[in-house]
């Protein structure tokens, strides 16, 4: 646990040192990180893909029903996967295309109806709303900006969607009335981008608060003042590195 705190605090500080400038500590952290993550994905691929999805079910099926064709069906992805490796041998490299074709064909087919459903029809459905409502006291139109379903917001929504869609027209030059619509679209885009930017600040700050809380925790006596000691060492190392590289430059 205590060793963990030291390692975690050290790696955190190494990466943060990148905010100062590129330096050996960051390089060390970066290469460690890449190495660990590649190793991690290899282990995960081996256990979850090869063992759990391929080897174990295949072994089970074949030992239980060796005569049934269905037991061997998992050999298809295995063979396709192996075809990918044909790329290592230039002469038969084209075989890998069969695997690409399989993967991309599946992806494209799956995408079409689902995209139409949730990103086209569903979006149209949510945008098209009556501007007025019929209540007990007859027809009324909502002017309450705070309620997203009110009539006035429905109008804003339709204008926004239509003008931004028009901005994405490529075969029409944006002139005349088209220019006004496209400009409206650009303003909508910019307001939305600004709002989204401002909105995201909070969640990014939460991450930083989380990291800093951990560092503060590791600065406690029960962890041997890990953060403080490591912070001092990091600063010293950076200073030493600066001096050394300055000296080298002067020579």
């Amino acid at each position: 646990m205590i060793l963990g705190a030291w390692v975690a605090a050290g790696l955190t500080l190494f990466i943060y040192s990148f905010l100062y400038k590129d330096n050996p500590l960051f390089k060390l952290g970066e290469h460690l990180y890449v190495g660990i993550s590649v190793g991690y994905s290899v282990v995960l691929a081996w256990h979850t893909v090869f063992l759990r999805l391929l080897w174990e079910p295949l072994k089970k099926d074949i030992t239980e029903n060796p005569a049934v064709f269905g037991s061997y069906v998992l050999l298809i992805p295995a063979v396709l996967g192996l075809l990918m490796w044909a790329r290592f041998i230039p002469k038969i490299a084209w075989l890998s295309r069969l695997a690409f074709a399989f993967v991309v064909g599946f992806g494209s087919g799956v995408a079409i109806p689902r995209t139409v459903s949730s990103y086209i029809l569903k979006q149209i459905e949510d945008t098209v709303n009556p501007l007025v409502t019929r209540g007990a006291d007859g027809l009324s139109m909502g002017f309450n900006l705070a309620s997203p379903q009110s009539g006035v917001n429905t109008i804003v929504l339709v204008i926004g969607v239509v003008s931004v869609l028009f901005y994405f027209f490529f075969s029409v030059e944006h002139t005349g009335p088209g220019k006004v619509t496209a400009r409206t679209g650009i303003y909508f885009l910019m307001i939305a981008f600004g709002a989204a930017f401002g909105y995201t600040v909070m969640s990014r700050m939460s991450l930083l608060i989380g990291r800093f809380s951990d560092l503060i925790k590791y600065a406690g006596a029960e962890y041997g003042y890990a953060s403080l000691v490591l912070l001092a060492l990091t600063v010293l190392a950076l200073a030493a590195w600066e001096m050394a590289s300055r000296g080298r430059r002067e020579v």
Partner: protein
Amino acid sequence: MIIAPTLLLLLFLGASVLAAIPAPEGFRALDTPNDAGKSLSLVWKASPADRADRTVQVWLADGPDGPFQKVAEFPSNTRYVKPGDFPWWAQPARKGDHYVKLASSQAFPIEDGKPYFVKLLVREGDQEVWSEVAEATSAPNVFNTAQLNNLVFVLAFTGVLLASIAAARRNPHVPLRRIAGLDAVEEAIGRSTEMGRPILYLTGSGGMDEVSTIAATVILGEVAKKVAHYDTSLKVPHRDPIVMAVCQEIVKESYVAAGRPDAYKEDSNFFITSDQFSYTAAVDGIMLREKPAANFFMGSYFAESLLLTETGASTGAIQIAGTDSDHQLPFFVTTCDYTLIGEELYAASAYLSREPVLVGTLRGQDFGKGFIMSVLVLGTAFATIGVVVDSAIFNYVLDLFKDFK
């Protein structure tokens, strides 16, 4: 002598009080339409007397004589067919009728191809009345008719697309509006050549089955042709091994097309790791150490976008981004010199290559967008008129553009 009629009268009154709960009218059971089986649906007419303290129980059996088992209970003024539940071309019951879906459960499993018998019990206080017994057999369906509009949309759009591609093949000189970011591509490559620094090109986080990745690889092909021509060095770090393999082929082809197959280097495309942030750390490292003069960010991105572009900005590189990841657009727009927003990324590949297929596709998409824009405007008008004149007639049109499950 007087007592008897009184008794009769009382009996009669009592019977009429009991009969105050009407039996459910028009009760029938059917196989749930458009589903994977193992489920039945019940339909009966709504009654003006439905209310919260009158409950309906559903009793189910696998033989006509029982034993019946209670599987559901709810207030009698719930479970209606509501507008928007079903499209008009695939309605199991009239709007306003009661509609209950019974799914197979552990308490009462429903199997396909076996007849089941259902009856309703309506009760209020200590009065109760049974409906008739209805029979139905569950079966899985082979086509979801509620999604017919989806299929029609796909087919119609395909038709428009093929027609406009054919038209563009006959006449490839379709005018396309200027896209600001693209004029900068040439400039960025030129600058890198002058400064003798590499060009960094990222294809995003997506796999080969995403449009943004494919558009990014098409643009990479065009950029690589120019790079080969100017003899600048190109670096393409990858997160997906398949995309890397495809990009190697594409870049090689571009060098061949530019007449410089000798200048092609196999390791201009290389793999770093598939993990999001370690990839980012490594690319940031490349930016700081090799100081590329131009950074291209094409494809789809997640939270790493700002980590990449801010580092790139600090090294003074020209940055051109193009993404359809709407959630990351604010960061690209604020930190890059040029950003291709959403569809502009796809348009860019057509604009740069002037390939009839791509240009035709773009036109086809424009037709599609025009159509959707008119649906939005007219649909809102129809929906409003529908409320004003209090009529459901427009639903026949509006339902065509709804998403049904």
